[in-house]
Each structure stands twice: as C-alpha cells, then as structure tokens.
C-alpha cells in the first residue's frame, strides 16, 4: 500500500527525448490507466516506474521514498507483461513462487500465498501444469498471480489484455478491476485501448508524444477534454473536428451558425461528439449521408457537411436505415456539448 509520485520525469535515449517531463500524484489504492497511441511513451514511462529503464531526469517516489536508483526487486512493485513472460519450463506453482523463493521466504509461507492467490484467480486445478498447457486467459491469470503473491505496493500492467480475444478481454477487464479493488493495491495500467481506459480507470493519464495531455477521471476527460488530442483520442467513434470561427458570440462553420459561444472573434477548432448530434428538422447543420452502420442499439451515419464538405460522423440512437444514400439530413447540437480548441496549440478554450 503506497502512493506513487512522478515528478517531472524525463527520458532520453541518446540525444532524443521521448518523455518530456511527466508529473502525477497517484493516491494509495488508486487505479490509474495510462492511455495513448503507439509510440507515445506510455510503456517507457511504466518501465521507468518498474526500474527496467533508467530515469534521465526527475524523480519517482514510491511510498515517499525516492526509487530512481533502486533495482526493480527493491522497489516493492510487481509487473504483468503483455506476453505474460511466464517461465516456460516451470509449472504454474513454480512460476508464482519464484519471486518469493528468491526473496528467501519460508516454504510454508510461499505455499500459503500461492494457495491464496490461486484460489482468488481460480487456478487451483492448474497449479501443476506448464504455461504451454494453458489457454490465453489462464496464462494471463498466472501472470496476475505471480504479481499478487509478492504483495507489492504497486501493480504495474503493460497492456496485459492485448493478446486476448475480444470477449475474454471484457471478462478479464472486470476481473482485474475487481481484484484490484479487493486488494486495494495502487495500480498503474498501460493500454492503447480507450475503452479499457474508460471502463477501468479511477483516473487516466492521456499521453501523446511523451507529454501527459490530461490527467483526470474518465468522465472528466470525456466531458471536458483539455486538449484537442485528448478530445479525439477518448470517445468512440472519435469526435468530429471542424475548422470554425468565433464571430459575435457565436461559433460558425463556414456560413452556418452552430451555436452560441463566448470569446473574442478568432478562428477556432470546433469539436462535436457524434453521439451529441441530434436529428432536428430545424437544425442549422446539414449533411449528406453516404453510409450507415447499424450497430443495433445505435446507428453510425457517415457523411459530409453540405456547407464545407468536411467529413462528419453521427451516432443516433436506435436503427436508422438509410435507403436513399446521398439523402441530406438536418441536425443540431446543444450548446453545452460544443467543444472549442485553440487551432494553434490545441488547448481547450474556456467553455
């Protein structure tokens, strides 16, 4: 049990800086998800916390102690790897016990902890099998078990679910979350999947290009994204973004007034979430629909704005079969769902 502090952490490989100073304070027992596209530095950041990468600048503290110079084993952490990294020649039991054996724990305590973890993860029947004889989900559980038996202060997860099929992923997502809240261990979880981030996180760190774009609860990030990147990365389907203009207290796209907005006259980036657009015969926005994707509960419509020709995606509840392709449709958006960003640096303009 411990909190985890990142203070202006930077990473350089040679002269290239890949992480440009990330700071975060993670409370005891919190489940934090670091989310971002490939190559944004999220795994590197995690590996720095684990001690597998050196820290070029800044400081990482676990339970109030600086750990920059400590070996992974002395940091009181446990890590779950993307490909599980189970020792292929050891049984499930030996895999879980290995860390404790090295730490020189007495045999009966090792047995007790392994038994406990395997009960928690429903692995009791598989303790004497080799990893090769297990399914993907079971291997994932063994990897979790290996982390749990260490009773660490911090759990680190490096995209642990990305090798599983979609259904199992949903199930394991719940299991991991449930387990973590039961054990109450501070966790840092890296993923590129924004659904995982939304569903699992107490708070998430949205990373892009080695910078933490936003740190906040999933709903915070969804409702008030601080940057254009966070806005587009979180939410599915992605937010529509148009080049707009603030003119006389209203935001315009081309000649169309989308809604009221405060601020001095200036060009802006206008963000509208597909699910916030509602069909409205009197709406000011008009689009030509080119394709529909009925998903059952809702329908995605893809088309182009009549005014500017920009691509736009709408998500309407229920089934909307579009028989006549190229039909035009009018819709509107509530003012509170209008997101405005500075076109120069992508920062959110006050809403």
């Amino acid at each position, binding site marked *: 049990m411990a909190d985890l502090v990142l203070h202006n952490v930077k990473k350089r490989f040679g002269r290239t800086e890949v992480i440009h100073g990330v700071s975060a304070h993670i409370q005891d027992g919190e489940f934090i998800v670091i989310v971002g596209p490939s190559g944004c530095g999220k795994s590197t950041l995690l590996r720095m916390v*684990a001690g597998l990468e050196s820290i070029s600048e800044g400081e990482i503290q676990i339970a109030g102690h600086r750990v920059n110079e400590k070996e992974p084993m002395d940091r009181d952490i446990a*890590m779950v*790897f*993307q490909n599980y990294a189970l020792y292929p*020649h050891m049984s499930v039991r030996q895999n879980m016990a*290995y*860390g404790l054996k090295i730490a020189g724990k007495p045999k009966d305590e090792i047995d007790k902890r392994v038994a406990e973890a395997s009960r928690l993860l429903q692995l009791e029947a598989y303790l004497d099998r080799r990893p090769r004889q297990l399914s993907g989900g079971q291997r994932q559980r063994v990897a979790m078990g290996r982390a749990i038996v260490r009773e660490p202060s911090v759990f680190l997860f490096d995209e642990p679910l990305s090798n599983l099929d979609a259904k199992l992923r949903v199930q394991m997502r719940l299991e991991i979350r449930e387990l973590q809240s039961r054990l109450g261990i501070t966790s840092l979880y890296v993923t590129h999947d924004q659904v995982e981030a939304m569903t699992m996180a107490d708070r998430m760190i949205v990373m892009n290009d080695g910078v933490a774009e936003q740190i906040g609860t999933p709903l915070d990030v969804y409702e008030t994204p601080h940057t254009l990147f966070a806005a587009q990365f979180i939410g599915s389907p992605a937010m529509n973004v148009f080049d707009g203009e603030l003119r006389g207290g209203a935001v315009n796209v081309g000649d169309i007034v989308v809604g009221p907005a405060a601020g001095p006259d200036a060009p802006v980036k206008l963000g509208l979430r597909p699910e916030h657009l509602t069909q409205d015969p009197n709406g000011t926005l008009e689009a030509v629909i080119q394709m529909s994707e009925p998903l059952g509960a809702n329908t995605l419509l893809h088309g182009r704005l009549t005014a500017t020709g920009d691509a736009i995606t709408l998500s309407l509840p229920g089934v909307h079969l579009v028989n006549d392709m190229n039909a035009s449709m009018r819709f509107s958006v509530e003012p509170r769902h209008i997101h405005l960003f500075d076109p120069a640096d992508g920062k959110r303009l006050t809403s």
Partner: protein
Amino acid sequence: MGENMNKQAQLDPPPGMVEKRGSRLWLTHLLMIVGILVVFFPIWLAFVASTVTQVEIVRPPMPLWPGDQFLENYKRAIFSGVNVPVATMLFNSLVMALGIAIGKIAISLISAFAIVYFRFPGRTMLFWLIFITLMLPVEVRIVPTYEVVAGFGLLNSYSGLIFPLIASATATFLFRQFFMTIPDELAEAARVDGARPMRFFVDIVVPMSRTNIAALFVIFFIYGWNQYLWPLLITTEPDMNTIVMGIKQMFPSGDDTADWPVIMATSILAMIPPVVIVISMQKLFVRGLVDSEK
C-alpha cells in the same frame, strides 16, 4: 461412397509429399536395403573377425559367419589387449569425450550468456573473434598448441587431452542464436522477481536450453571420442592411449603378425559408446535440432 472418399483422403499423404505405390514402393525399399547392406558389410566383417581365431582369418577365403571365439577374443582384448588393456583405453576415451563435451557446453553457455545479456566494451569484437575461430580446425593450430601443452607439462595427462579442444565457437554461436530468441520480457520478469544475472542464468536460461544442450552433448561426445590426431601427438605412454588412436597402435611395427581378432574386437568395442549415447539421447537430440522450447 462419400465415406469411402473421405477415408481415401485420410490415407493419402499430405500434399507436397511424394506419393509411392506398388512397384515403386518395393523398388525404393530394395534400394534402401541394398544401401544399408553396403554400409553395414565392413562392420559385419569386423564383427566376424572378432569371433574367430587368428588362423581362420589369415587363411583365405575369409570367414563370413561368426565363429566360436567371441568370449575368448573379447576377454583378451578387454583385459590384456596388445600394448595396454582395452578397458584402460576405453576409460581414457570416456574421460576425454565427457571432458570435452561437458567442458565445451559449460564454456559456450557462459560465453553466449555474456555476449547476449551483458553490455561491455569490446562485446561485438569478442563475438566476431570467437566466430572467426570457427574457421580454424585443430590441425591448423596443432603445432603451437603442442608447444603450449608441452610447456605446461601436460603431455600424457587428461588435462592435456581435454583443455586444448574445449573451446567451441560453434556451440557459443548456437547458444547465442538460441538466447536471442528468448523474449526480453522473460529476463525483465526475472529481474522484477529479484533474480540476479547468474540466478537468471541457472534458473531460467539453462533449463530452457536443455534440448539444445542434449543435442550438442551428443555431437561433442562423438567429436571427443573420435579424436585421433591430438591424442596420438601428446600421449606417448600406452597407459594414456585413447581407444581410437589405440587401435592404430595395436598394429605391430616390424615383422610381427597383427593380432587381428583382438584388433577387431577393439574396433567393435570402440563403436559401442557413441552408439549408446546417440540411441539413448535420440529423442532429445532430434528435438533439440528441430525445435526449441519456448
């Protein structure tokens, strides 16, 4: 009908394999049997010669079927031999072959581990140096090696037989290739688990390489067993003879007659240990050459 066709489909060899039926099947078997007979015939002759008396061998025509002197000849070979009992030579060969096989594997495992998992100055250069020595067979460096061994006073000793042949670029190279296929995460997981490098080596790397180790053990045991030139150079006392060179030493130098039954019995005895090693480790050997366990 449909069922029959299904059965037929199951019997057919998978596509890509050459199908052989009827007369061609017999022909291929005939060719194989003839081939085996040709290869096996000299060994058969040696065996026959080891079971008859000296007189029978020298008198033409040569006997083609075993005689009744089997026990007599082998007893003579093992316990008295010509210069030295064959049992001694067998023991010497065993020590040398085991020493070379185990030594080569131990050294190359450790050096491959160093090259793959540690970053130190001159790492690449050292690797290429090892790799280049692949091109130098024992015979090329035999004179300087003899100088060194003689200088250390290792003539007529097991150390002298084993040490000059113990370094292996081949095995180092093979283990390096294998280690590089072990995922990095495994090393990292071990690090997080608290394993220091040598612990990781002993607990993870070595057990994972065991099929490769078995395959190389077979190859190097036979390599060591079959050494001829080197033992011939450095062992001058009959007590230190190894069996492969010892057979040659059994031939008389002057006008004496060769004791053929004993020599042939020795030859057969010399063949047995490698065969036993290959057969007993066959399963691991094939697995080690074909796939690796990951």
